[in-house]
């Protein structure tokens, strides 16, 4: 398998009036061609900012990509000019689908117009050519009567339908890679399942590489091959999906798992929640960012932030403890 995308030591900060927000603090990962990577973590843990940094979509200022390498097909996306980023990468090579389909479509432009825009810009399609492609795309994502709906406005679509339109839009120019930023969070559970099925289908049909951001570990299982768990702008655990489910090692991953409803644990009746709130990202973290909420916290956790450490079998995590064995590493 060849590596399609490799991110090394990405650091992103926001300089706000309240102080500097340390949003992403040295994140490294890679994505194989045709692979699916899931990024898991609570709201505000830096998942979205990481992905937006890849495409350089964060507002600068107040945002700043402090350092890092984003290697895509042998070129560093962070060093590319804004112009070639816009004309060669965004929407053409790497497409993105966002969380809230209600606000992510422009309310005053027709679906047809928004769908054909990338075709016009990236592939120089003529209007009728673009229209034809748009109809095909809507059909692909399962919107009934597509040629009629091109003239409609976003508010005339339901939430699930809008997300399908978003996906159709992302796929318009046959991108190599799709970043999906919590695409199902704002939708009903049944619609969620439909969208996930749709993406899986499309992946197998077109051969997309996918990064799927979610805070729901349940969604990850059926979809991804590889999982990254993020907390407070750090990667705390990384493994392929089976390993992570069978053998979670980081206390945060454990806690996430415990918070998951599970068929076999029905009699326990109560789901476990993680006490406390994610840390204040305004302070440059000194110790382990999870220390204040961790069940197993030891003195060392407060003093030093554990590095990401390989456990073998493509499994790595960042914790001073081996929770299973109950000893300091």
């Amino acid at each position, binding site marked *: 398998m060849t590596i399609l995308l490799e991110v090394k030591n990405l650091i992103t900060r926001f300089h706000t009036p309240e102080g500097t927000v340390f949003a992403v603090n040295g994140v490294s990962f890679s994505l194989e061609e045709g692979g699916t990577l899931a990024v898991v973590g609570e709201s505000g843990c830096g998942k979205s900012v990481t992905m937006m940094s890849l495409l350089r979509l964060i507002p600068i200022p107040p945002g700043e990509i402090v350092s890092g390498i984003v290697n895509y097909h042998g070129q560093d996306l962070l060093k590319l000019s804004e112009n070639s980023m816009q004309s060669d990468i965004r929407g053409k090579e790497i497409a993105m689908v966002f969380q809230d389909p209600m606000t992510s479509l422009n309310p005053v432009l027709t679906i047809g117009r928004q769908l054909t*825009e990338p075709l016009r810009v990236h592939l120089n399609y003529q209007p009728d050519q673009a229209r034809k492609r748009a109809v095909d795309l809507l059909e692909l994502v399962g919107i009934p009567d597509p040629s009629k709906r091109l003239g409609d406005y976003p508010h005339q679509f339901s939430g699930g339908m809008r997300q399908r339109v978003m996906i159709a839009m992302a796929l318009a120019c046959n991108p190599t890679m799709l970043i999906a930023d919590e695409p199902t969070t704002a939708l009903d559970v049944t619609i969620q399942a439909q969208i996930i099925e749709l993406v899986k289908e499309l992946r197998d049909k077109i051969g997309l590489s996918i990064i799927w951001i979610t805070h729901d570990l349940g969604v990850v299982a059926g979809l991804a091959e590889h999982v990254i768990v993020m907390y407070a702008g750090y990667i705390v655990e990384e493994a392929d999906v089976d390993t992570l489910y069978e053998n979670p090692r980081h206390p945060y991953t454990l806690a996430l798992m415990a918070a998951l409803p599970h068929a076999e644990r029905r009699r326990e009746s109560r789901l476990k929640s993680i006490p406390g709130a994610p840390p204040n990202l305004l302070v440059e973290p000194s110790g382990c960012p999870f220390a204040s909420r961790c069940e197993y916290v030891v003195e060392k956790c407060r003093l030093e932030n554990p590095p990401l450490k390989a456990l073998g079998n493509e499994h790595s995590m960042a914790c001073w403890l081996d929770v299973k064995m109950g000893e300091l590493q």
Partner: protein
Amino acid sequence: MFLISILLFVMLQNMGDPLATMGGRSVTRREDRERLARQFGFDKPILVQYVYWLVGNDWTKVDINGDGIAETPGIRKGVLRGDFGTSLVTRQPAMQLILSRLPNTLLLMLVSELVVVLGALFIGVYSALKQYSFFDNLITTLSFIGYSMPIFFLALGAMYIFAVNFKRWGLPYLPTVGMFDPQAGQTPGQLLWHLILPVTVISVNSFSGYSRYIRSTMLEALNQDYIRTARAKGLPRRETVFIHALKNASLPIVTIVGLDLPFLLGGALVTERIFAWPGMGRLFIDHVSRGDTPVVMGIMMLIAVAVVVFQILTDVVYAWLDPRIRYN
């Protein structure tokens, strides 16, 4: 609207002796005064006067010679049938007087509004794009000053610099009075030349307000999710800003412009006065200080009607521009 017309009418009736206004010194004989008062209905109670003003008095008879028997048919048709009465100052029909000034005011105000909207769009969008830059901060400060600037101060200052001092220094100076130079005749060039100062002065206030407003609606639009989507699609910046953001940002601007337009009819009182522009604003000042009810009421009613009409028009245009309303 009905309410405000009653309110204004009652107030205007008490604004002093209309007969003195009408006749000046020439009508001093008591009989003449009484005859005039009866002819115009000033001897009637205020409510009756209002009814005459509203619906006219041609359905009844007026007692002009004062013998207690109403014998002469009334001639007024009333506002509801388009008769605003006769100006007490010039004895012309009030509407005729107002309409003769209307084009002048509209010319001045529409040119200003055009300058303001176009200029403010440009400045507002630009400073939204360069938020917190030096240019943006400069514009913010300047628009605060512009917004706080009393028009007369600006007008006097502009006159002093561009007319008085330019003349003194032998530079080509701008005219400060009227619409045309009597010697040069009524040419479009003259008109433009005379428009420069008043238009500039009127524009400053609303220019500041508009550009601030456009800046904030643009900023809001630029922070929306769909802008992020447009960027993620790889649209050029030009298209993201001028199609995706501006189309959304312009919706509230339409409302503001629509609600402001009718007030343009009234003209800029102070500007017209200072630059001796023969518009409705000056007509209003001249006649309000002499207690000329028909003309003053006529102007106010005209504006009030325009406000209502433009409110409806704005709603229609807004619905036409915003698909969310159109289909609901």
